[in-house]
């Protein structure tokens, strides 16, 4: 479409192709077989996340995010990953700590909501080593939705007139019915989606309790999907009450059983965030040397996420975090 005089010309880089026909071919060949997809986090990361892949995390920064998978990505020194920075906070902190990404769609990174800014995240993003493109939360979320719907773009009324638009990879279009000026956001098909859930069966049917943020669209948009779950349950639980099926098995490639998989984040209905540990992170980030030691201690020198849990929290603290959780099941 031709842009009008004086309109903003977005200059941002498009990191993933929005081509729907290529995506259709991929999904055509994705197995619909109901097979046992259980594996360990290291197995899942080795099998489905490759250097150069474009990844996306579910949840919302420090809430219902897949901590275990992100630690494993850093521990195994993945590199040149693309990342969808959709309302990320501690998840971005972990990836920035490992310097595993070299390009990033940004809606929200570096920030930690009420907890301030991530010093190391800032250093990393100010170093010039990461190519970035700007979006808004809704704009980036609707990119997942476009992919989930199988269309190359969705029209939206956000980002218009702003520098967020200027440094995005969106396009200005005109509504064919009313002439209304609109933003077109391109479909985003991540190579790998990473989502932490409350319950899942061995095939990948997954239940998310509470708000779903953008995870239902992300699960559909992702070419490969790694699910980590607090609990494993029988498939019959979903067939008895399909309202529990947030993600059907045919979208899922790996099911990893990881209790406390969102630690130190908040897992609604399960446990609250470990604010002390999150504060410890930010403190450690202030000095690069000190932070290197912090990372060795908690990630590089530990064999797995379970060990990190013991080191950072321990059973007593984890029990305390359960008692601090405010949402109770009825």
């Amino acid at each position, binding site marked *: 479409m031709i842009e009008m005089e004086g309109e903003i010309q977005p200059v941002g880089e498009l990191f993933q192709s929005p081509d729907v026909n290529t995506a259709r071919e991929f999904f055509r060949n994705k197995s619909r077989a109901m097979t046992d997809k259980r594996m360990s986090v290291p197995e899942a990361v080795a099998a489905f996340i490759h250097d150069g892949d474009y990844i996306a995390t579910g949840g919302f920064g420090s809430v219902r995010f897949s901590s275990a998978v992100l630690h494993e990505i850093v521990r195994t020194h993945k590199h040149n990953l693309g990342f969808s920075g959709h309302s990320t906070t501690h998840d971005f902190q972990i990836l920035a700590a490992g310097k595993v990404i070299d390009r990033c769609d940004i809606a929200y990174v570096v920030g930690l*909501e009420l907890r301030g800014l991530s010093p190391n995240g800032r250093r990393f993003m100010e170093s010039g080593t990461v190519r970035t493109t700007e979006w808004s939360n809704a704009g980036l979320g609707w990119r997942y939705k476009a992919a989930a719907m199988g269309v190359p773009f969705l029209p939206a009324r956000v980002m218009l007139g702003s520098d*967020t638009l200027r440094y995005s990879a969106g396009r200005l279009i005109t509504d064919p019915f009313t002439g209304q000026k609109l933003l077109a956001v391109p479909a985003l098909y991540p190579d790998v989606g990473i989502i932490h859930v409350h319950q899942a069966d061995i095939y990948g049917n997954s239940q998310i309790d509470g708000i779903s943020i953008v995870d239902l669209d992300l699960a559909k948009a992702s070419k490969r999907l790694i699910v980590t779950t607090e609990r494993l349950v029988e498939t019959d639980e979903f067939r008895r009450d399909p309202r529990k099926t947030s993600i059907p098995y045919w979208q899922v490639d790996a099911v990893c059983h990881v209790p406390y998989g969102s630690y130190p984040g908040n897992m609604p209905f399960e446990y609250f965030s470990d604010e002390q540990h999150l504060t410890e992170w930010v403190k450690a980030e202030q000095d690069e040397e000190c932070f290197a030691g912090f990372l060795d201690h908690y990630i590089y020198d530990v064999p797995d996420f379970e060990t990190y849990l013991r080191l950072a929290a321990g059973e007593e603290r984890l029990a305390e975090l359960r008692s601090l959780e*405010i949402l109770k099941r009825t």
Partner: protein
Amino acid sequence: MVLTNTRYSLMELMICAAASQLEDNQTAVIGTGAPLAAAMLAQKTTAPNLVILFEAGAMAPILERLPISVSGSETQTHALVHGSMDEVMEACQRGLVDYTFLGGAQIDQYGNLNSTMIGSDYRRPKVRLPGSGGANDLASLCWKTMATMQHDIRRFVPKVDFITSPGYLSGPGAREAAGLPPGTGPYKVISTLGVMGFDPESKRMQVESLHPGVTKQDIRAATGFELLFAAEVMVTPEPTEQQLEILRTQVDPDGMILGKPERQKRG
């Protein structure tokens, strides 16, 4: 500037000023921090039926604890809907949301907000900030956008380094020309020095009230652009004892917000 009283903190004054802007039976998407404290205060006083929405998906909760994150468990207590971000953003786009509350590192006379980067070159930021998050969406789609800001010359600037979230952009008609929904835009700015609105014609920021003890000179000196002043500039109403009581004992007993630096300014 200095507040000469010991009864309340500047933060408490700002929260009460913000709360008084929220009408009952209206909808508002609120972020964490002072705005949320204001919304909770409003719900417990003048706007019991204020419908609070969170961009991450919780709709119409009854808040028990001041949320740390807009997506956390505290945003979902007794909610009517445990929805999704697209649901909330689409409600905003559909025209259902009356208010939103934002913040930023910089603001200009047209209410344009910057929360993306400080510096002259996007590719080489002096300071990399979080980016839009939901701010651009809410500033684009909600009917009335409010902002709470630390008021100083580095934040109230002639030109923001980066327009993350649209105010009135370059002035009257610019939002509509850009394709943004008509009738939307900045409504109030509640700063550490006063409460500003926007002149209906010029769309420029205009002082409506100054906080107790603040002079026009103070606020001019702390602002990098020419401020307009309402025909009658009021003094921002001081918090009532009841407001302070509820704020300190029910809204933020742990001092998550009230305990922040501003509180030290007291006395």
